[in-house]
């Protein structure tokens, strides 16, 4: 019976042209392996050659850019191919990263003179999202204000989420006051972007406005946004955090006002306290000192950290070493150390001799560590 079944299965295999089928697949796979291997080796050599050329091109442009900085008559051998333009853009971006404002101006002038953006913009029309994304990224990093209209116009028709995100980021790098509303309106439509990203965009925009000497406009804008009923609370928090991040002191009155208004929301209170602490926006401790006694431990913890900017807060901070919350105690101790000699003296004299073991331990730890 077994032989019969086995024979039957084999006959079925023959009838279904199984042999030919298996042979065909085997040949196909054998051929595919050879082709894959050839692709691997050829691709490796081709790509390495291309990279070598890009590297040479990069060092040539780097030398040319450095010699042509501030010299409008300088002779610059312009790229002829698309990839050469990308390399040139990358060189200019590389030179701009972390450079001083004056040198950045010269680099931007050079970018304008070489018309780099004009060669990047056509890629925005690409059918594929990757060239569009790369183009948007380079246009943003070149930080040329004249690219703003192009980026804004493209934002209206772009569908891909990754490119939209990159567009918002690029706009934030060179944005004008009106762009804050534009960015917020788009962020409202993207449900997945995190608060940290929003904060990053707002911080970029504020830094861009400060670079353009538009600090009073930026402060006014912050005030309008924080007072507006139409702006969601989460964006207000991110904006406040961004103000703190770039230590934008002019925004502190608006933040103080918002603090009064949003006292019921611990999240907003925390953001305000953190920002005020970072920018030193509450030197007399009108908001920070009362917050040290807040019912919510998270508020107390942030207030303890922010209290470093309030002169004479160290006695109040010392009391917080006995707080119910571990985090508040830690922050209070590190703030005391940051106060300098007065805080350290308090920790040495009273902290190490305290009846509370935790206070002794934390004082010992902080004095030893910092």
């Amino acid at each position, binding site marked *: *019976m*077994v*032989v019969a*079944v*086995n024979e039957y*299965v*084999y006959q079925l*295999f023959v009838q279904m042209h*199984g*042999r030919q089928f*298996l*042979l065909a*697949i*085997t040949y196909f*796979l*054998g051929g*595919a*392996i050879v082709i*894959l*291997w050839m*692709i*691997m*080796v050829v*691709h*490796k050599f081709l*790509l*390495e050659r291309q990279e070598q050329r890009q590297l040479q091109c990069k060092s040539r442009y780097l030398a040319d850019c450095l010699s042509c900085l501030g010299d409008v008559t300088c002779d610059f051998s312009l790229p002829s191919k698309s990839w050469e333009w990308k390399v040139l853009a*990358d060189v200019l*971006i590389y030179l701009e*990263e*972390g450079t001083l404002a004056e040198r950045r101006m010269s680099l931007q002038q050079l970018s304008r003179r070489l018309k780099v953006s004009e060669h990047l913009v056509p890629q925005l029309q690409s059918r594929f999202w*990757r060239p569009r*994304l*790369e183009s948007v*990224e*380079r246009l943003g*990093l070149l930080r040329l204000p004249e690219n703003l209209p192009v980026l804004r116009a493209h934002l209206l028709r772009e569908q891909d989420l*990754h490119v939209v*995100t990159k567009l918002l980021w690029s706009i934030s790098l060179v944005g004008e006051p009106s762009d804050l509303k534009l960015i917020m309106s788009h962020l409202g439509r993207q449900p*997945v*972007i*995190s*608060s*940290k*990203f929003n*904060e*990053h965009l707002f*911080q970029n925009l504020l830094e861009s406005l400060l670079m353009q000497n538009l600090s009073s406009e930026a402060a006014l804008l912050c005030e309008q946004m924080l007072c507006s009923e139409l702006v969601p609370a989460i964006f207000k928090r991110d904006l406040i955090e961004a103000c703190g*991040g770039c230590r934008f002191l002019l925004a502190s009155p608006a933040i103080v006002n918002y603090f009064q208004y949003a006292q019921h929301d611990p999240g907003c209170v925390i953001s305000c306290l953190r920002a005020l602490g970072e920018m030193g926006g509450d030197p007399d401790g009108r908001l920070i000192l009362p917050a040290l006694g807040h019912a919510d431990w998270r508020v107390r913890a942030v207030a303890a950290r922010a209290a470093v900017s309030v002169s004479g807060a160290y006695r109040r901070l010392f009391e917080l070493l006995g707080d119910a919350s*571990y985090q508040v105690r830690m922050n209070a101790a590190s703030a005391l150390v940051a106060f300098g000699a007065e805080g350290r003296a308090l920790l040495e004299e009273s902290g190490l001799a305290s009846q509370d073991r*935790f206070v002794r*331990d*934390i004082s*010992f*730890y902080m004095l*030893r*560590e910092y």
Partner: protein
Amino acid sequence: MLDTFILLLLMWQLLTLGFFIAINSYYSFFTLLALITIPRQLTLASHHHINNLVVGSYYRPISIIVPAYNEELSIITSISLLLGLKYPEYELVVVNDGSNDRTLQRLIEAFRLVPVPRPFQARLEHEPVVHEYVSLMSDQLRVIDKRNGGKSDALNAGLNASRYPLFCCVDADSILEPNALMRAAKMFVQDRRVVATGGVVRILNGCNLTNGKVTDVHAPGKWVERFQAIEYLRGFLVGRSSWSALNGLLIISGAFGVFRKDVVMAINGYRKTVGEDMDLVVRLHRYCCDQKMPYRVCFLPDAVCWTQAPADWHSLLVQRNRWHRGLVETLLYNRSMMGNPRYGLVGLVALPYFLLFEAFGPAIEFVGYAGFVLFFYFELVNCEFALLFLSLAVLWGAWLNLGGLLLDNVVFRRYARVKDLMILSVAGLFEFAGYRQLIAVERLIATVTFWRSSWGKPKRHEMNNENRKAAY
């Protein structure tokens, strides 16, 4: 009686054939999927983008937790390298899990550790902490010395001691590329749904390490390592990137993964099991689905961690045995998710796949081989068919391996010499002639002894980090 047995075996062989076609088709499909998804991921994480992250404020601080048990040979090199990562704000929490070698002494000497009587918040349960040390050389480094309780216990202690909202678990014998952490953590900022990300784990064996950076990537010297190198490429670049694209990723390697601490705390941290990495990710899926919260678990092919693979057959088998026990135990523990539509793709596709192809795969494969031998004995094998089938199996397997290697070469080009690609291609061709069967047998043994909880630590080698002055 014998007839019935052989008839059943024949039926089983047909099932094995179906299994063979299904698993190879799955890998073929995933290879093609990976060819699409990996370049996409790399475009999003461009050099400019990462550079902007490193110098900007666009990050979330991370606690790196390094559990260490008897790691005296590699601990100093790996901690020194972790202290040199490019990341704006991170702390390093090394947990000495009751090592009985000189791991702790070497750490104390190398990093000038001093004990501090610091209060310890115990939100997760673990074995008692003996001492906590801080380093006088680096304020980022802390060492927790605790009683032995296993890797998951050590990770829980590290979680309790950590301060930051994200944490990264790294094995003590692994090293991260300088920007790996930034690449792995960027997703948490870009997408608020992300709860966990994992990077690629690559084999360090055969590579040169200079100033903490893997400089020359070569094919490993021994065949046992070469087979693993090919296996890792296939597993990570093809398997994980494709599951990640489908949002059904069930494993983030214990050697390198970044997680949201609040969510991990909500599921009570790591569970005591030998497969704690997979278990954590499956429970994260479970928690997020139960809570109806939108979430993502991502694999990032550009975040690279280098690890020492077992260099001898015994250590390899011990390791694979442990991995497989971990898999079976995790599937058993989370069995209520299996086929449950409440858990979406994870419950309906990913878990059944892992049960059928990964957990039961070795058993099915083994019975297939045994059946072939029996058929041969009873002269029931058609030689032509058998030869054709064998060629098909070897070539299909080689094609898949080469696909992984091609993917690595097209996208990353880590192997500098064609010679290395040749060696690995040959390893890919011969992986199906002995190596695969050996691993299948070990996994089968692990399947029937899944309740064992022994860790079985592979033999470690000292990492040679050559300190050279950079050539400008």
